[in-house]
């Protein structure tokens, strides 16, 4: 596994040198040189081998919500640096850099809109914002999305991508696991469907709270999903992990997710689960002639 990861990294950096990266991208899985445009049109899935490249958070909103129907909530909510945290640089400086890069206040987009006509609440995490880490803002926005679901009687969908709780907010970050799970307890009792979609990577506190609590847990192919990160486990057990450990397929085999879904078919699958849980009829099959 260690060997495998190292090799992958080499390929990527080699690809960067060989091809102009603003126009082309080399698939780290099959080596195919891909037009970025074509990759985008294919939901960042390699047309040659089906490898799921990471997709930015907005991509999931587009993918799941009917065109033009999304209303974003609390876009500008920001961390208040409650601990005055300062490591090698001040936390507000890290936040500002992440905000410049992503154009949003923290590591999650929340909002609502129709999915195949069914009103849903959606939260999508952004791994590029300090590793998709969960601090107070992520916790609050997910909680608000869950509370809105409960109030409106509309399903909740959360797309996770996270390295875990955000260290720079200390135990307040840890408490976001409890806070979001408490909001899901209420949703659970209200019998409102909750769909959790796990993407690469989902580890730590996010996995150990809302990401694992779906009425249906769906994973993208090949995503790293776990509680402890692979490096921490390797250091603890002092041996290399087998290939595929903590990948989606491994989680399916061990009973932790219900299904692995190709991103391009995700919306339809989510809709099908929702209709079952909501007691809605099977949609009429459209005839082609």
């Amino acid at each position, binding site marked *: 596994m260690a060997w495998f990861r190292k090799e992958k990294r080499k390929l990527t950096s080699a690809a960067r040198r060989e091809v102009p990266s603003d126009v082309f991208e080399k698939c780290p899985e099959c080596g195919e040189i891909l037009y970025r445009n074509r990759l985008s049109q294919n939901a960042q899935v390699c047309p040659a081998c089906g490898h799921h490249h990471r997709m930015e958070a907005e991509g999931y909103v587009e993918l799941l919500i009917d065109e033009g129907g999304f209303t974003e909530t609390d876009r500008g909510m920001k961390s208040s640096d409650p601990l005055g945290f300062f490591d090698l640089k001040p936390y507000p400086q890290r936040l500002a850099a992440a905000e410049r890069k992503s154009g949003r206040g923290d590591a999650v987009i929340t909002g609502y809109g129709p999915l195949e006509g069914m009103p849903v609440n959606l939260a999508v995490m952004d791994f590029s914002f300090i590793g998709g880490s969960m601090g107070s803002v992520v*916790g609050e926005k997910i909680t608000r999305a869950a509370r809105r679901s409960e109030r409106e009687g509309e399903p909740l969908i959360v797309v996770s991508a996270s390295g875990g709780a955000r260290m720079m907010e200390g*135990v307040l970050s840890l*408490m976001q696991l409890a806070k979001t*799970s408490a909001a899901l307890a*209420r949703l659970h009792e209200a019998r409102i469907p909750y769909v959790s979609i796990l993407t690469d990577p989902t580890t730590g506190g996010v996995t150990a709270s809302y990401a694992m609590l779906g009425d249906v847990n769906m994973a993208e192919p090949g995503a790293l999903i776990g509680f402890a990160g692979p490096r*921490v486990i390797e250091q603890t057990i002092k041996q290399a992990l087998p290939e595929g*450990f903590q990948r989606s397929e491994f989680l399916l085999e*061990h009973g932790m997710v219900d299904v692995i879904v190709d991103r391009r078919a995700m919306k339809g699958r989510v809709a099908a689960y929702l209709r079952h849980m909501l007691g809605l009829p099977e949609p009429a099959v459209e005839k082609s002639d």
Partner: protein
Amino acid sequence: MEANAEFNRDIRELELQIDRLQELAQARGLDAGGELKALESKLAQLKERTPRPLTAMERVQLARHPQRPFTLDYVERIFTDFTELHGDRAFRDDQSIVGGWARLDGRTVMVVGHQRGRDMKENLLRNFGMPHPEGYRKALRLMHLADKFRHPVITIIDTPGAYPGMGAEERGQAEAIARNLREMAALRVPSISVVIGEGGSGGALALGVTDRILMLENAVYSVITAEGCAAILWKTAEAKEKAAAALKLTAPDLVELGIVDEVILEAGGGAHLDWDGTAENVKHTLTRHLAELAEMDPEDRRRARWTKYESMGSWQEPEEHTT
């Protein structure tokens, strides 16, 4: 640090002596001026010799002190009629978590806690207090039992963290913790957690979603170990002192952050020096909080719990509201 704790104990004893003398003198109309002066100068001397207050990292070390009382040591001193229950009914009995029925002043409660070992043999059995998923599932089974028979839940937190191993991942460490968080939030009975040593991240929180959170004065509670945080953010484990301070992981810090409800003082200069006295303090505080909770209507109590967790965190609202 040991010396530090002893100094603190001596100071506290002297302060007590002075208080008593003053009270006595006042009650009997005596002049104890000379004696008081002597004691006070002794106290001043001692305070001067006493090093600064404990740093965050020193508290971390105290929280991990091998001579501190562990969960079963408290159970023995606080409760009577403890009858242990075992196993998750699915895989095995994880002995890094212990639990069972017990009585607090005669009243039945369910006690569940992490259990560390005192020597290598015990630690192999207890896995250094680091549970696997089946440990958390056993804990949840016991808490559901308590809910079923309407008895309060008391949890005792003392773990470096959930075990990061292959079996733990295969059997769903994340799912086990997540489920506990959600189910503890939904319990209809009163619940109190007491952090007695190290509150190590998600592995601690999996027993910690409760109406009240109490913490011993030298216990710590953190999202990551000081060493782990130092290694990641400072790129060197040497920075653990700085990381410990920055993480705000001590009991007084957590009261200030609105997470912990009350700090329980350790007797005799530290729990490791006075097991009985510290257990007595825990018992008093537990009893008081439990009495308060028991008076509440079950639905109100659950709602208060939800509101408490919902208010945790700190953020800036966006300038324009979109909702």
